């Protein structure tokens, strides 16, 4: 199945991409997707920053199980305001 990953801010810059479509196995979790992504884009993991995880515009836990066509966002520390 396929999911759409959107990258913002420091992650977008590190990956050099704002949107990635990624093929993953049935039953994959959010954290497993992250690990797969960091193999494709090693720079993503270059410095430890605390990430939150969002699926279809809502925060989820790292063990959240993904479904086909989910929109996944790895959220670096927010700093709006």
């Amino acid at each position, binding site marked *: 199945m396929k999911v759409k990953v959107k990258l*913002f801010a420091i992650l977008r810059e590190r990956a050099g991409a704002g949107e990635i479509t990624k093929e993953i196995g049935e039953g994959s979790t959010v954290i497993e997707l992250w690990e797969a992504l960091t193999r494709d884009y090693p720079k993503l993991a270059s410095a430890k*920053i605390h990430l939150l995880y969002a699926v279809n515009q809502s925060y989820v836990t790292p063990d959240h199980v993904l479904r086909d066509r989910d929109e996944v*966002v790895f*959220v*670096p*520390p927010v*700093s*709006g*305001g």
Partner: protein
Amino acid sequence: MFRVTDKALNLQELVDYVTDPQAGAIVTFIGTTRNQNEGRQVLSLDYEAYPEMAEKELKRLGQEAGKRWNIQRMAIVHRVGRVEITEPSVIIAVSAAHRDDAFQACRFAIEEIKKTVPIWKKEVFEGGEVWIGTQSGQRFHQR
């Protein structure tokens, strides 16, 4: 009104939106780009958002404020893109029958924005730029 925009913000538009015959108080918060941060000379700030989710989170926190305090209306608009010194990046407006509710709900909104709303600020300073919050040591920016 909960919106992310790349246009310059208009304070009066938000205040008009929350104006209500049952309100005796309107409190607004305006976040502006200041010319220094942690000893660095700031040139401008560049904001980026995950807009669909940011607007959803703004609405959610507005609903949460409505549960906690007796307010009439709330509006929040956050700008994205380059925001020059003295320009507003975010405006919050809250109306309420009584001022204590308006002050508390407005304060709550800006604190929540800085915790949960997917918007990121890159500081452009003399000699470099940095995504606030992602530096080594998790330096958080307090406005």
